[in-house]
């Protein structure tokens, strides 16, 4: 029941305007089974709108949204999907076990309650009313609601916001297991370390378009490679024109240079400024790489 080279969910040339403003313009995005796909980008890039279209909360103005080959607005299409929403609440007066049991009943072949609660780290909270949960505990209930139906597609919108690091790591490990068992996972996150740790595939969106779609390692290599930091009196313009350098800027007292070839750039840098001190070279993080991608996009728009 997949419709495009193993895509379980797909947006095909989708355009969507919200409040008179174009949010998506001809977007193509597919989510594949067995893979964790992270959807990243600044606020307003169209991530939430894309997720809303794939989960059937809104319909495209133009183009098509499909979920297991069906219109996501049909309940039948959603029976193989679990969704963890950032903005959703819980019924205050019901207990955790009651809420999870009710949700499990929507699916044809749900997990046993005890298994769902254990996976979400909620076994000790089963009898607690939702009103008495902390923010992080409520997020874990939402995670339980998303996985209770053994979904083939799991959509996680900012899953670990409000969770402490321990709970977040526990969630990551279960998400990884579900992906390895063959589920498709679509993740949005502001936490780029989370995306880097979890995702097989990173899709970077900006202004309603996809600006990169690749593995985390490939995006890091493409957009940067390494970051050189040092104390130097060189201007950023000179730094940016060093061999292999992609960009140069100031970060506090440091001169920061993003480079595709750290050795070539560092050798030239030492020649140009023999007085420099405090030289450090690090791998570009995913955050560095995405910042560079987005900055390059802005320059293209400005030019």
């Amino acid at each position: 029941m997949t419709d495009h080279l193993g895509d379980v969910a797909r947006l095909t040339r989708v355009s969507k305007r919200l409040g008179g403003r174009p949010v998506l313009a001809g977007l193509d995005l597919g989510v594949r089974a067995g893979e964790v796909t992270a959807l990243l980008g600044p606020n307003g890039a169209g991530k939430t709108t894309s997720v809303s279209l794939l989960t059937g909360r809104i319909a495209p103005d133009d183009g098509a949204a499909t979920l297991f080959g069906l219109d996501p607005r049909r309940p039948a299409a959603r029976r193989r999907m679990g969704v963890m929403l950032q903005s959703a609440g819980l019924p205050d007066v019901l207990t955790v076990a009651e809420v999870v049991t009710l949700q499990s009943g929507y699916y044809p072949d749900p997990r046993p309650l005890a298994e769902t609660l254990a996976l979400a780290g909620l076994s000790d909270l089963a009898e607690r009313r939702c009103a008495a949960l902390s923010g992080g505990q409520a997020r874990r209930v939402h995670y339980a609601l998303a996985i209770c139906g053994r979904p083939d597609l799991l959509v996680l919108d900012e899953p670990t916001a409000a969770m402490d690091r321990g709970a977040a790591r526990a969630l990551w490990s279960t998400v990884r297991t579900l992906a390895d068992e063959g589920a498709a996972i679509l993740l949005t996150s502001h936490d780029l370390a989370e995306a880097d740790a979890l995702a097989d595939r990173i899709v970077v969106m900006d202004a309603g378009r996809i600006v990169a779609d690749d593995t985390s390692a490939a995006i890091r290599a493409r957009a940067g490679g390494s970051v050189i930091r040092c104390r130097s009196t060189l201007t950023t313009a000179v730094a940016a024109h060093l061999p292999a350098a992609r960009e140069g800027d100031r970060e506090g007292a440091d001169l920061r240079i993003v480079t595709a070839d750290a050795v070539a750039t560092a050798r030239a840098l030492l020649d140009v400024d023999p007085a420099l001190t405090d030289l450090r070279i690090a791998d570009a993080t995913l955050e560095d790489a995405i910042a560079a991608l987005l900055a390059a996009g802005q320059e293209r728009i400005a030019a």
Partner: protein
Amino acid sequence: MTAATLSPIYRPPSGIWYREVVAELKRTARLPQFLLPTVLTPAAFYGLFTLAVAKSPSPAFAAATLAGYGVFAATGPALFGFGAGVAMEREQGLIELKRVSPMPAGAYVVAKLVASVVTTALALALIDALAILAGVRLSAETWVALTLLHLGSAIPFALIGFGMGMRMSGKGAVAIANALFLGGSVLGGLWIPSAMLPGWMRSLGEVTPSYHLGQLARAIIGVDTIGTPGGHLFAVAAMTAAAIAWAWTGWRKSPA
């Protein structure tokens, strides 16, 4: 993978509707601050305005006003449970949770409707008990017909409330629900019979389901009625059809 997951035609797991109803009844029972006022208010009004104010009311008068107060008892839970309740649940993101799940939309509406009807039944039990204490005697068939009409009165108001809840903020929906609850009951002749109202109030009241449902209830008891039961039945059916469209478009258009 079971046969169900491979079947091209989706049959929802059995029991979704039943479990949704049970969960909604639990929620209702665990919120006495909302349940008690909607159950007690109609009985308190009936006791005060009909039985106490009239000193020793004749059983015929108590029966005639019972017709209207029973409809009044149904409008409260329906308007507040659906109108205000749905609006607040939408603001809390509870509807969003349901919408991304494979739950059929109808299960949510039916669960809330059953909770409204059960709440109405509690309120009706109190009013009916007061009426019997005041000497009202009706045949068994009349009691059955009257009770069914009173319980059924929840349906058009629930649909109106649902459409409000999908469109308005919680505060806005509470305000409008209050206006419809009290305004509809006064203008529709549920408290003071329409025949005793000034002409302009009666004309305004004719556009409310309260008026037509109240007249149907009076026809069942056999007290003086304005118009024909058939006409009122037609008006209620037309208003219910419009309310279905109002509720459905609200559900479809709401972004959350």
